């Protein structure tokens, strides 16, 4: 019966084009990029074989440490911020707004689909210090506080980037986690209510444990994106002031295209890829053991 579904020519015709494009434009370049790590130079200057010197450089380069630290710090803070803000939104939608939440959900989701560049430029204007105060500094002044040079200091620049990326994505995690809350069976909630649980007790002892799996998958999704942060940093601060807000992605981009060193750029990209895979593996392991305990 299954013979028509085993037709080799049909399979080749259906799967072939996608597989070909995907292999040529994504898989082959990935391996090729691995090959670059043992060369130095670029497409304009030509490549020279250098063995493992790129890896030696990676461990001695004074710029790599701060970039790794920034990447991890940013990823952790923004991921935690996005998931917690999203979870609070989801609770708000499910328990306090109930059926009326549709409009609020739709409004808060909007920044998710906005171009990062547009959002970054908007935040630049909101937090502007010179030549003119933006909305945030004007509000501070109105309350009698002095203006802050938000994007001119490493610490405040970090705060603005983190706030922007949480602002941008919390509506998304709100909807994602809200659908998770909807999946919790009503009779469990009813039973807890009959046992005398108030809203907060219900949330703490019933809702949070039951929605843990979707919280964990949200966190994995979020950290996979935040480790690769590029657009928002590039458009908002350009990595500055100085190089204080430069993640690995941006350092790799600068090294390769401004510095013309593809070999070393590919080595940094490899480091980034390994970090992404490691973090995902660690979270998977941790969540597997925590669900086993529970």
């Amino acid at each position, binding site marked *: 019966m299954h013979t*028509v579904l085993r*037709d080799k020519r049909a399979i080749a015709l259906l799967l072939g084009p996608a597989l070909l494009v995907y292999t040529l434009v994504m898989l082959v370049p990935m391996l090729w990029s691995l090959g670059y790590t043992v060369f130095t130079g670029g*497409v304009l200057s030509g490549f020279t074989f250098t063995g493992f010197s790129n890896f030696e450089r990676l461990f001695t380069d004074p710029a790599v440490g701060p970039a790794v630290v920034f990447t991890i710090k940013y990823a952790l803070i923004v991921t935690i911020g996005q998931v917690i803000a999203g979870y609070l939104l989801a609770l708000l939608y499910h328990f306090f707004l109930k059926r009326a939440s549709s409009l*609020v959900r739709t409004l808060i989701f909007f920044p998710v689909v906005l171009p990062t*560049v*547009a959002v970054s430029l908007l935040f630049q204007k909101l937090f502007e210090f010179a030549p003119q105060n933006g909305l945030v500094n004007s509000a501070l002044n109105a309350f009698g506080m002095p203006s802050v040079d938000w994007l001119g200091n490493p610490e405040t620049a970090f705060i603005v980037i983190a706030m922007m990326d949480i602002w941008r994505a919390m509506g998304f995690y709100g909807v994602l986690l809200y659908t998770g809350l909807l999946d919790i069976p009503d009779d469990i909630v009813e039973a807890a209510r009959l046992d005398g649980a108030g809203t907060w007790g219900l949330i703490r002892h019933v809702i949070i444990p039951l929605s843990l799996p979707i919280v964990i998958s949200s966190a994995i999704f979020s950290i996979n994106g935040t480790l690769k942060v590029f657009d928002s940093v590039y458009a908002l601060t350009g990595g500055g002031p100085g190089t204080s807000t430069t993640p690995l992605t941006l350092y790799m981009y600068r090294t390769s*295209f401004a510095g013309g060193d593809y070999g070393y750029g590919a080595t940094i990209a490899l480091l980034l890829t390994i970090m*992404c895979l490691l973090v995902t593996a660690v979270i998977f392991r941790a969540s597997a053991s925590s669900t086993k305990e529970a």
Partner: protein
Amino acid sequence: MTTIDRDVSIVARRDSRNGARRVATFFKRLPLYVVLAVLLVVFVYPLVWLLLGSLKTQDEFLNNPTWALPENWFNFGNYEAAWSSVSGYLLNSVLAVFPSLLIALLIGTAAGFALEIMVFKGRRTMLLLFLVGIMIPGQMILLPLFSVYFQAGLSQSLWPLIITYTASALPLTVFMMATYFRAIPREVFEASTLDGASIIRSFVSIALPMMRNAIFTIALVQFFFLWNDLLIALTFTTDESLRTVQVGLLNFTGQFGVVDYGPTFAAICINVIIILVLYLFLNQRVMRGLAAGAVKG
């Protein structure tokens, strides 16, 4: 007479009790209203401020408080100033995004069909192979692609963008289509082949129409990813005339100087309004699609 009076008084008392209860519930719900008001200010006001700014003159920017309303609500001069360059960027974005979207959807849907409906060895491995593409950072493929495009002489065209966009949209498209096809029993396609249709024919005239909704949702999700892309566009558009709307917008401030606010605000606004119009009509589908993409990805 008296009965009517009593009735009225009962009604009045009930009203006042209702009113008191209403006041009580209002105070009980006050924290909720405060939270909602804060959310509204934080999410809506920046965008309104942006829109108002796009209608202000340079003079108003420098002399009026930043939260002032524009003096002339029909001052579209900023839009005229911005449009001359933004229109070119928009055209580039359309020319790069739509062809890639179309190709990726067609071959991605076919691949999803093959991986889920057809029977052959190595299907799971193949699906996992496509998954790798979702995990790996884009930085990993940029350098070899740049070399190849440069050596093939494609650098002065939109081809690098079209090719890279098509490939980068494939993993999620294939993966999501495969999950959608999983819900359809294979018997549907076996039955159609009994009626004499080839499997390719069943794909075109049964699977595609059946999946119309799913394909549209994925198209929408991928549209936002590609339209909002910065990394790929930044890497491959070496020529100023090839800039997409995102790359162009980023260099916009440089072109008019940081100090010339109006046109910059208008340019950002144009970029926001295009997405807003799409979102106004399709918001439910967009939200569902993106959430599904995350869960499956």
